[in-house]
C-alpha cells in the first residue's frame, strides 16, 4: 500500500511535464478543430522525432552534469558524410551509414577527451565542436546539399502509408535511452557522476572512461537524428539542424532534468520534445503570426516548466 502510494507519487512527480503536455493538448484541441486528427498527431510525432532523438542523447550528457552544444552540427556532419560517401566514392549505403554513425561517435569522443583529459568545461569543448563539425560539413559538401541514397531515404517514409518511420526510430531510440539510463552500469554511473563526481570516483567508477562513453552516445544519437532528418528531406544539407542544440537541451530540461546533473529521465525528455513539437504545430494550425509565434513559444515554455515546479512545491 505505502509502496504503491509512493510509486504513484514519484511517477507523477517525475513526469510533471506530462501535466503541461496534457494541458497543451487539451487547449489546442479546443482551439483548433484540425489538431486532434490522427494524421495531425502523427505529423506532430514526425516533427518531434529529430529533436527527440538529439535530446535523448543530450539526456545522457546532462545527467552527468555536462552539456552538449554540438549535437545539431554533428547531426548535419553525419548526414553529409553518409550522403557524400555514398555519392562520391560510391560506398554501398549500409557501409556509408556505418561510416556516418562512426563520425558521430568520434565527434562525441573528441568532446569527451577535451572534457575528461583536457579539463575543458563541457560548454567550451562542445561549442568548439559545434563550429568544427558544421565547418567540416560545409567543407565536405562544398556548401551544397547532397542527395541521400534512396535506400536510406526510406527512413523518412511511412510504413503502410500510415506509420511514419521517423516516429518509429524515435520510439526505438527513446526506449534504448531509457534502458541505458535505468538498467545498465553505464547509465547508473552517469547519475552518480552527475550527482557527485568525486564520490563516484572514490566509489571506483572510472569517471573519464564513463564520460567518453556518455559523449560518444550523444554523438551517436546525433548521427541517427541527422540521418533521419536528411531522409525526410531526401537530401543532406550542410546547414541542417542549425540551432537545434538549444531545442534539444530545452526538451531535456523541460522533461525534468537538472543542468547541474544527477537528474533526468528518457520519458521526461520525450515529453519535453513533444511539448515543443505540439506547440509549433499548434501555432501553425492556429495561424499565429510569425512574429508573435516566438513570443508565444517563449511564454508557453516558461509556463510548462512553471506548472511543473509549482506542482512539486505543492506536493512537498
Amino acid at each position, binding site marked *: 500500500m505505502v509502496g504503491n502510494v509512493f510509486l504513484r507519487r514519484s511517477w507523477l512527480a517525475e513526469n510533471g511535464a506530462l501535466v503541461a503536455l496534457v494541458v497543451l493538448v487539451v487547449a489546442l484541441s479546443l482551439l483548433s478543430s484540425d489538431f486532434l486528427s490522427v494524421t495531425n498527431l502523427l505529423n506532430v510525432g514526425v516533427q518531434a522525432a529529430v529533436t527527440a532523438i538529439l535530446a535523448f542523447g543530450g539526456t545522457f550528457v546532462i545527467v552527468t552534469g555536462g552539456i552538449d552544444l554540438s549535437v545539431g552540427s554533428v547531426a548535419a556532419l553525419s548526414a553529409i558524410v553518409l550522403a557524400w560517401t555514398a555519392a562520391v566514392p560510391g560506398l554501398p549505403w549500409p557501409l556509408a551509414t556505418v561510416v556516418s554513425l562512426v563520425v558521430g561517435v568520434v565527434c562525441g569522443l573528441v568532446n569527451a577527451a577535451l572534457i575528461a583529459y583536457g579539463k575543458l568545461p563541457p560548454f567550451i569543448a562542445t561549442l568548439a565542436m559545434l563550429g568544427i563539425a558544421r565547418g567540416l560539413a560545409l567543407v565536405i559538401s562544398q*556548401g551544397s546539399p547532397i542527395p541521400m541514397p534512396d535506400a536510406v531515404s526510406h527512413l523518412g517514409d511511412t510504413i503502410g502509408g500510415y506509420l511514419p518511420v521517423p516516429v518509429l526510430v524515435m520510439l526505438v531510440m527513446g526506449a534504448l535511452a531509457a534502458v541505458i539510463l535505468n538498467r545498465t552500469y553505464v547509465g547508473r554511473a552517469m547519475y552518480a557522476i552527475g550527482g557527485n563526481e568525486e564520490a563516484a570516483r572514490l566509489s571506483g567508477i572510472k569517471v573519464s572512461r564513463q564520460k567518453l562513453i556518455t559523449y560518444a552516445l550523444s554523438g551517436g544519437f546525433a548521427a541517427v537524428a541527422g540521418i533521419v532528418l536528411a531522409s525526410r528531406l*531526401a*537530401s543532406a544539407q*550542410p*546547414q541542417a539542424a*542549425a540551432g537545434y542544440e538549444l531545442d534539444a537541451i530545452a526538451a531535456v530540461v523541460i522533461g525534468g532534468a537538472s543542468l547541474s546533473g544527477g537528474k533526468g529521465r528518457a520519458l521526461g525528455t520525450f515529453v519535453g520534445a513533444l511539448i515543443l513539437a505540439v506547440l509549433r504545430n499548434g501555432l*501553425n494550425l492556429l495561424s499565429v*503570426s510569425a512574429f508573435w509565434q516566438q513570443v508565444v513559444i517563449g511564454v508557453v515554455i516558461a509556463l510548462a516548466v512553471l506548472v511543473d515546479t509549482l506542482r512539486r512545491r505543492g506536493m512537498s
Partner: protein
Amino acid sequence: GSAGPSGSNTSGSPGGANIKIGMSVSTLNNPYFVQLRDGAQAEAQKAGATLTVTDAQNDASQQVNQVQNFASQAMKAIILNPVDSDAAAPAAKAAERANIPVIAADRGVNGAEVAQTVASDNVTGGKLAAQELAELLGHKGQVVVLQGVAGTSAARDRGQGFTEGIKAFPNIKVVAQQPADFDRTKGLDVMTNLLQSNPGINGVFAENDEMALGAIKALGAKAGKEVKVVGFDGTPDGLKAVKAGTMNASVAQQPALLGQQAVAAAIKAAKGEQIEKTVAVPVKVATTENVDEFKIS
C-alpha cells in the same frame, strides 16, 4: 490572435471567395522576405482569400512540418518559398499526397512537381551584379565579395552567378571572399577587416543589401565613390542607399511583385484553373538613374 502588426491573416470578401491558402516563407528575419509576404498579403486581401503565413526560420525540416500542417488544415493551395530547393521536395510531395497544388515562390523545387514556379533567378541576378560592378569599375579593379550564410541556397546561387559573371572581365580580380552571414553588423565588421588587408579595393559585391549596408558604413565617405558597392535584393533600405548614392546598384528581385503573383497563381490553382509552369519575375538592377522607378515603402 491574428490582428498583430505583422498581420498574417488577411481575409476579404469577393474574388478569391474565401479560399484558404497557406504560405511557408523561408525566413522573416530578412526584409526581402518580409516584402515578399507583404506583397502576397496585399494580393490575398484584394482577392478576398485567406492567407496564412508561417516562418520556417531558414530550416528546411521545419518547412516540411509547416506544409504538413497546412495539409491538416485543408488548405486549398500552398505557396512554398523554399529554404532550399533540394530539400523542398518532401514538402511538395506532402502537399501532392493531399492533392493540394503548390506554388513555388522565389526558389524552385528540385525533385518534385509543383503547379507553378514563380521565381527570379538568383544565379542570373549574381551575373547581373557582376556585369554592373564591372561597368562601374570600368572593367578593371580589385573587388571583395561579402558572402551570405555558408551553405544556404541564396548564398550559393548568387555567389555562383557572380563568380561566373566576373570571369568575363579578366582585369577584375576578386581579392577576398568572406562570410558576413547576410547580417548588417557582420557586413560592417568584415568589411572593416578586409579594408585592413586589402586597402586597394575599389569594388564590393555583397550577396544581400543588409551586408552591403554594413559595408557602406565601413567604407564611410568612400562608399559609392572610390569604392563601388553592389548589393542584392532591392530592400527599402537598400534602395534608399542607392538613391543617396552610397550604394551604386542593387539587384532587385521585386519580392512584393513575386508574392503578388504567387498568390494570384495559387487562387487560380485552387479553383482548378490551368496555370503556366513557370513565371519569371524580372530581375531589375536598381541604379542611381532608375531607382525612382522602384517602390520604396
